[in-house]
């Protein structure tokens, strides 16, 4: 569960069609963003519904850094007003989303950052961004050795030396 703190109404204006939200990152940076932009996040949408139920505006504390949060906001701003199948599967007949070339450029970051972005997108429930990150990571894995895959995914080897040298012992059964 996110931590929610009360904020002064003067800090976050709540009137009009483009209301603002205050997002607080783990490094305690306050970022004001239009609610429309973040509506792609199901997590944020649910928080906003909660505000409306209680008639109180709050800041939303998020467990990742402002650097990552700004990347997510950049993504959401780029696709503001766009229909993306992953985020709204009920709005259109099933089919494949268009290939988004912009995403490839946007996600051309080091693998550490990529993992942080996908975790943030997962937390915020932005399925389209999760999908794009997952595709980018899967592309990184393509054609790599087991050791390189470990590095990319940040996973430790928990096989015993015997298991590691005996492929048939892995996951048989």
């Amino acid at each position: 569960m996110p931590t929610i703190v009360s904020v002064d109404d003067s800090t976050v204006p709540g009137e009009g069609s483009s209301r603002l939200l205050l997002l607080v990152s783990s490094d305690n940076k306050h970022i004001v963003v239009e609610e429309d932009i973040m509506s792609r996040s199901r997590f944020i949408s649910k928080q906003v519904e909660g505000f409306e139920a209680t008639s109180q505006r709050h800041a939303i504390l998020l467990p990742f850094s402002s650097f990552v949060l700004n990347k997510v906001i950049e993504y959401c701003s780029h696709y503001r007003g766009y229909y993306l199948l992953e985020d709204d599967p009920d709005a259109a007949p099933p089919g494949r989303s268009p290939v988004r070339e912009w995403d490839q450029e946007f996600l051309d970051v080091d693998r550490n950052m990529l993992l942080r972005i996908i975790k943030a997108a997962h937390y915020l429930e932005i399925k389209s961004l999760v999908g794009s990150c997952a595709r980018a990571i899967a592309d990184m894995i393509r054609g790599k050795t087991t050791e390189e895959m470990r590095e990319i995914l940040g996973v430790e080897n928990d096989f015993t030396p015997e298991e590691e040298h005996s492929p048939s012992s892995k996951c048989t059964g």
Partner: protein
Amino acid sequence: MPRLPLELLMHIVDLVPTEDLLPLRGVSWLLCAIATPRAFRVLRHTNTLRSTIALSHLLETTDIRQYVQEVHYTNRPGLPSIDELEQDRGNSEVGTHLFHALQLLPQLPVLHTLSLNLAQPYNGLNGQLGCCSIGQLAAVDALAQLDTIPTLRSLTLDNIFLHDIYSHPRLPNFLCGLTHLRLSAIDPLPGLYSTPVFERVGLYIQPLLRAAADTLVSLTLHFQDDTLIDLAMLRYPHLEHLSLQNVVFCAETGAEAFVLAHAPTLVSLSLTKCKTLYRSPRGWAQIYDTFSEGLGSLREVAVEEDWAPCAWSELYPLAKRPARRVVMYAGASVGYCSEDEGEDVRGLDRLTESCRARASSGGLHTPTVPAWTAF
């Protein structure tokens, strides 16, 4: 380095190509557990009893079948030995297991490709149908009992033998909604049937061709021998890739009009061993020129002609050239080549050149799916 939660690892592994799953299994126990069932995305089995039983068992396994995207069931290589024929006699187990496996297809939530290379039937000992025929009967029987599988996009039925089993009224239901269809038909036992081959083509193949009319993007229709099949009434509004083999271009088949009717969408055309009727006023030169002018979206054309040298080719020079014309008699055909077919060759050159020019200039039409591949 951030650690990813299980759901994200599963999502990523879903997108890793099948060939990379083996090294991925060596990363850690968790990745091994995630990657192992996904390694069964593509199942390739042959029509041996052992392989068919394995297919059946795999599709029964819940952890595996949720990842199966493609099932390919093919003929084992080579002709059956006498021992195998003896084994096959009365061995209906292959059919039983294949029937059971195919009945499980609706329980595969992401299945998009099914390819059945239905082996050519052969007579078993004592005149019984052999194992391969049992497999073909079982496959058709199973498919006819299934309704449309919503995720299925590509279906291949190779070596269909023109037999009453294909007249099952429910079989076409299975083809509804497909985007890629490949049918190849053989007439394995000439003389066995009283009805000529082209009548059986009409009876058994045409209902299948009509079933997927609204959705089909790629159609491959191959016959073993020169065939008259009425294509005149068939229309596919989204057809982009068409491949015909041994289809005779004449008034009876309406093949030329059929191709031209798909001019707005047709991007690639492959004609293998197709012929016109002997002494028909409409030869290949005229047909190619009509295609050059009429098929405005065509980017690729491939023509392979029937070149079959015969015993007297040393004496008869024309026998060394491809047969582009044919005489049909009660379903049987005799190929011919004329004295001068230079104009046909030049017509094909003009068609190829017009496609090349269109392809190099870009053009407006962008195919929605690649040819002959599903996803």
